[in-house]
């Protein structure tokens, strides 16, 4: 994959995060009473729309954050081979974190 697509995805996820984090914060601070409670979170996880919202937020956040972390590592003048290893390690970390982060709300949704 060309670097331009990585960068473009970072732009898209940045834009997504602006709206998704915005909605998340508005809901928690100005939403219904007790929106920040555990019970309310469980209730939201039972809603398909909220489930999609949170999985999307997690995916965008993970990609955007890990891409930034990769940039920091690559700026240490690492060799191309080391750069590839760093990329693979961060992709693996992202996949594991996404799987774990998705498993919890999906399980709550299913139960």
């Amino acid at each position, binding site marked *: 994959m*060309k*670097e*331009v*697509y*990585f*960068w*473009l995805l970072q732009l898209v996820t940045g834009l997504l995060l602006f709206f998704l984090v915005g909605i998340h914060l508005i809901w928690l601070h100005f939403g219904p009473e007790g929106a920040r409670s555990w019970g309310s979170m469980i209730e939201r996880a039972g809603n398909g729309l909220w489930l999609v919202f949170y999985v999307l937020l997690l995916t965008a956040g993970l990609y955007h954050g890990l891409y930034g972390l990769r*940039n920091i590592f*690559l*700026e*240490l*003048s690492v060799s*191309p081979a080391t*750069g590839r290893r760093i*990329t693979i390690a961060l992709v693996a970390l992202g996949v594991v974190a996404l799987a774990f982060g998705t498993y919890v709300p999906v399980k709550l949704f299913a139960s």
Partner: protein
Amino acid sequence: MREGKTIIFRVQRYSPATGEKPHVVDYSVPSSKGMTVLEGLLYIKENLDSSLSFRTSCRMGICGSCGMLINQFPRLACHTQIEELRAKTLEIKPLPNFAIIKDLVPDLAPLFIRHKSIKPYLLRPEAQEIDVPTREFLQSPQELEDYLQFTYCTKCGCCLSACPTSARDKLFLGPQALAQIYRYCADSRDGGARERLSLVDSSQGIWRCHLAGACSEVCPKGVDPALGIQLLKRRMVVESLGHQGKGPSPAAPPPEEQKPRLPVPQFTVKQR
């Protein structure tokens, strides 16, 4: 020339060849109205210390030889008047982010190697036109405007010395080379965009630029390399989404095929 006050030139001296450590030496230089920092350095060399080394050539901001750090800001010494700095003491150091050959002489070889790597000349589909051009290529004044400011680059190295990414990442191409890639890709006569864009679409390529804008801030020729890099990013994104730009402009017809010029009208002067 009106005589002015005396200015202290606090110059960093360093000679890696002799194993000498970097140190600072103060020189008192009588300044006058309109006097440049380069003239001050020439005064030191001629009258106070002939061992001081710095690079200079044209003395008029064209060759880009005398780039140095003057009062913590990369400038051309020939393009900076002492008065405009409004300081009694001038701190003069070599450009950062470059190895030092001696005193104020930076090793600009990495800059030229990177510049050469981007093929800074017109690439044409007809191979013979690259080495031995036989024809002119059509270009409108508007098409010239697209890249004109980037042709003013003198390769002085000021932008590279100010770039925070270049300071950290020695593999980064740097603002000078990236802006020059845009200069050639935006030239309607050029057909080498794909070749050059694939060169910078790498993990150490254009995507390492954080748009700090320091390169544009310090450019003594008023070039905006940060703008060039952003426009290049946009072009790469647009092309990655499948939109291909138009090809290089066609060659101008040879002179014998041109239409004959209209005869010059015979004006007459009214006789009184």
